[in-house]
């Protein structure tokens, strides 16, 4: 056992000396490799944390939301529809929901106006989400003028600002009373934005949705499972976000591995020839290259993964923030709860280290099985 370990360490010493002889080239290689792992791991950690947050937080989203469509566009739904929906077996309650958008041209930001289902603010007051309060530069007790649909201005008093920890779901909200909401948006009494249904039995929701489509053909239903599926798809591996974030990193890695696999540089081929000429076995040469590859790929994997963890969970994914924000003026200030497990780390290891190891060993095996004289002369 001791002899075997000593042999491996001696070959590792030789491999590290060999890497250090080409230190400039290998440092660049290590930097690029670490960068690729960093990008892949950052995207993986970010998406996994967002997916878990969405799953946990939206687990209490409305059971079913019923929207009315007119000419293919969402339209106001008559409150009287709620009465008809209450008659469907399995529906415990059907309540109209009032919400909409309010664009502030001065700040170029669209806010979400909403009347809470329970505990709406008193008439004449407003409750703000954290990002909305920051952008409006207001505080509790101050007056907040809002331009109504008819051009008039309705001034509301800021009753309170929602806790910072709720920003991921409520950053841009302006919560109002029903009277203020209708006065500002012009939505007449008897109409609502959509209807929220309580269907406690999860297995009945599909049947209820089918009955709604039959009863009210101009509507469509969005079940809670659809909401969760949407976020699972957005933050899943096949989501648009991953495609954007990972396409560059993956292409870089493919080019990089292809470059290694397509052949060894003349200098490395000569080195293999000399080693074989002085008595190294083919298996020793392959072992040397395996250690070289392992030293580079393991360092890149560990450094890239650690940097990615710090980037996403200690520095709030700063590098991706610009991509996530897009043209948003209102953006929540939030810290993601880390969501990583050994399975994810193993997947990352397999995705990043194995292709590189294979790409290193194959050309070495090809070169090491050729006559050393032929290699040194070529």
């Amino acid at each position: 056992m001791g002899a075997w370990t000593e042999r491996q360490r001696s070959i590792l010493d030789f491999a590290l000396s060999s890497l250090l002889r080409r230190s400039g080239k290998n440092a660049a290689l290590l930097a690029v490799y670490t960068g690729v792992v960093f990008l892949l791991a950052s995207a993986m950690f970010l998406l996994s944390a967002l997916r878990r947050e969405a799953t946990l937080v939206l687990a209490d989203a409305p059971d079913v939301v019923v929207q009315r469509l007119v000419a293919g566009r969402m339209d106001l739904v008559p409150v009287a529809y709620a009465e008809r929906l209450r008659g469907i077996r399995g529906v415990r309650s059907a309540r109209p929901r009032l919400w909409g958008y309010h664009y502030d041209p001065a700040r170029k930001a669209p806010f979400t106006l909403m009347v809470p289902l329970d505990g709406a603010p008193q008439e004449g007051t407003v409750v703000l989400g954290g990002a909305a309060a920051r952008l409006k530069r207001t505080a509790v007790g101050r007056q907040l003028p809002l331009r109504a649909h008819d051009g008039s201005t309705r001034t509301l008093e800021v009753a309170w600002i929602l806790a910072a920890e709720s920003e991921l779901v409520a950053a841009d909200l302006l919560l109002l009373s029903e009277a203020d909401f209708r006065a500002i948006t012009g939505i007449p009494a008897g109409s609502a934005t959509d209807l929220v249904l309580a269907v406690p039995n999860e297995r009945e929701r599909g049947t209820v949705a089918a009955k709604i489509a039959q009863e009210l053909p101009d509507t469509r239903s969005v079940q809670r499972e659809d909401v969760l599926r949407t976020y699972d798809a957005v933050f899943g591996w096949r989501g648009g976000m991953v495609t954007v974030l990972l396409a560059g990193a993956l292409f870089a890695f493919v080019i990089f591995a292809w470059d290694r696999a397509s052949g060894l540089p003349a200098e490395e081929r000569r080195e293999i020839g000399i080693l074989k000429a002085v008595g190294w076995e083919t298996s020793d040469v392959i072992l040397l290259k395996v250690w070289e590859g392992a030293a580079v790929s393991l360092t890149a994997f560990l450094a890239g993964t650690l940097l990615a963890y710090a980037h996403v969970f200690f520095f709030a994914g700063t590098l991706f923030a610009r991509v996530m924000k897009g043209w948003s003026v209102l953006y929540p200030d939030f810290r993601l709860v880390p969501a990583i497990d050994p399975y994810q780390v193993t997947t990352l290891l397999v995705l990043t280290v194995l292709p590189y190891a294979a790409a290193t060993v194959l050309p070495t095996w090809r070169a090491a099985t050729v006559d050393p004289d032929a290699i040194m002369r070529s």
Partner: protein
Amino acid sequence: MRKSSIFLGSAAIMAALLCLCLLHAARAADAARPAVARRAATVKALGLTDLCLFTDASYTRHLALADLHSPLQEHPLCLEHFPAGSLAGPPATLGR
């Protein structure tokens, strides 16, 4: 000191740090449980359906409720142009 000792030592330190990250993640998730529960309570009380992540367009602000083709119908010949649209993608209900 042998080069292999330096390499193996630094790899072991980084591997230990990675294990600490896994431990940190598990502890942070436990510690955040009450805050997550309060966020879920906000969602329930207000009847919310979406995360407030992409606020640049209405169909990306409320991904779960967006019309299937709303990105293209803001005005005639409108093409999807918001950066968030390329990140968020269409709702899961598309094509069903």
